[in-house]
């Protein structure tokens, strides 16, 4: 069981969601976040005062998948989220010990 956390450009959310559905991913959690990697921020001016905005709005997707699905999902995300410019984001994978469905106490892959 693997957790996928993907930070992507806000404008790519719909495409990534559709690509994930196509490979069979059934659930995900989407969060509006702010952050930065190597991408530089931008400056804003309010009444002549300059503000450097280095935390940029991003979308973070989280999903926990059965191992068989993980590579397909990663491929779907990279293909759909890529614009080729700096700031396209990152994907993190980590092992997950277990999952529990609250409604009926199912565990493991059955709960995903």
């Amino acid at each position, binding site marked *: 069981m693997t957790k996928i956390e993907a930070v992507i450009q806000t404008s790519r959310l719909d495409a990534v969601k559709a690509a994930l559905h196509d490979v069979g991913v059934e659930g995900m959690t989407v969060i509006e976040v702010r952050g930065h990697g190597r991408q530089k921020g931008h400056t*804003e*001016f*309010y*009444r*002549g005062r*300059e503000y450097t905005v280095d935390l940029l709005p991003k979308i973070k997707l989280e999903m926990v998948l059965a191992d068989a699905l993980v590579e397909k999902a990663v491929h779907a995300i990279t293909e759909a989220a890529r614009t080729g410019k700096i700031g396209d984001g990152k994907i993190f994978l980590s092992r997950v010990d277990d999952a529990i469905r609250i409604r009926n106490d199912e565990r493991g892959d059955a709960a995903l």
Partner: protein
Amino acid sequence: MARFLSKILLTSCLVCLAANWIAAQTGSPAPATADARIAKLEQQVAEAKGSADNAWMLVSSALVLMMTGPGLALFYGGLVRKKNVLATMMQSFAMMAIVTVLWGLLEYSLAFGSGNRFIGGFHHLFLRGVGPQPDADYAATIPQQTFMVYQLMFAIITPALISGAFAERMKFSAMALFMVLWSVLVYAPMAHMVWGKGGLLNAALGGRFPTLDFAGGTVVHITSGVSALVCALYLGKRLGYPHEPMPPHSVVLSFIGACLLWVGWFGFNAGSALAAGTLATSAFVATHFGAAAAALGWSAAEWIRNGKPSALGAISGAVAGLVAITPAAGFVGPMSALVIGVVAGVSCYLMVAKGKARFGYDDSLDAFGVHGAGGTIGALLTGVFALSGINPIFKDSQGNPLPSGLIDGNGYQLVNQLVGILVAWILAIVGTLLILKVVDLVIGLRVPDDHEIQGLDLSQHGEEGYYWEASAS
């Protein structure tokens, strides 16, 4: 048959005669002479004009109130951080309540009652004698009560403007006491000197230094803007200023507020004609042109300097233009208004973007940069561009109009304008310093640091502008 008919005829004649007789007794008799009929017509014409003027002045009063709430409340509310939005809006709204009561009890009398050169007397205390009869010295065609309530709306917005300078750090209680004292000790005397009977600077009623101030460049904007600067210096900077970023939390709110200000300003300036005639139209047009030119001026300056014209810049420019055209509105033509506007737009931008940083004071929402600077520029330029052809305010002993401003051939008017400006600056500085000192001793001006960090919405009012409800939906 013939007898029957003649009986009916006779009866109906009698009925007609009786009806005529009754009508003659009960209805008003037709005026006997042509003179009487003319007098009656004249009276009806005067009444019709009075009603028209009164209608416009009541609408104008409402428009000016709209400038404070929601106009200024939104304009300022959007410029602060999220945690201070309600506290900032409340500072404007509180003026609508506090100054209204104060005005009725005392302030109207001090501003517009007859008194000496500097302040009015007490005979209109509790609005005594302020009723349906006009006060011919001020506005001969509208009830004095209308004049009183119209002027009240100015007295409300003026202190509310100051609140931009100490936003995000002043105690609500200290602010309330400050505003009460300021209204009585700074606003009332200044309004009396410029607009009141016997006032030192009154141009319409023969003051010693007749300062042209149509709608409050000195009375409203210089007093509030300069007092704002004094407040910003006295209270000190907000915690974290200037190294922490404090961008406006919602330029959208400010945008709506500024547009409401623009519309309300027609009541402020065109209403200051105190009648619904051609002078109101002229002031209306000048106001609009001034605002437009200043929006362009500020935007152009910003575009050149930062590479982009911002929404906040455009609306701030419009407000600066409205400020600058305020004293001039009823004296200048539309082309002069364009010049005044563009000068104000560019200068206020430089004041806010460069001046503030150079001098290092924290005028949170630029009350001085916009109102103090814009008001001073406007008052000076009024002395340059005022035309007697638009408003023959100065007359010789025979009643013939005399030139108004510099381009009209009255260069000396600039001296009068300078005196008016100087008086407004001095009164604002001295009065505000004194009041701040007193309030500081009695209540203390600033909130404690932890309250400032927490935000004034919670610490001063116990609520939040944007409540986070986890279970919503």
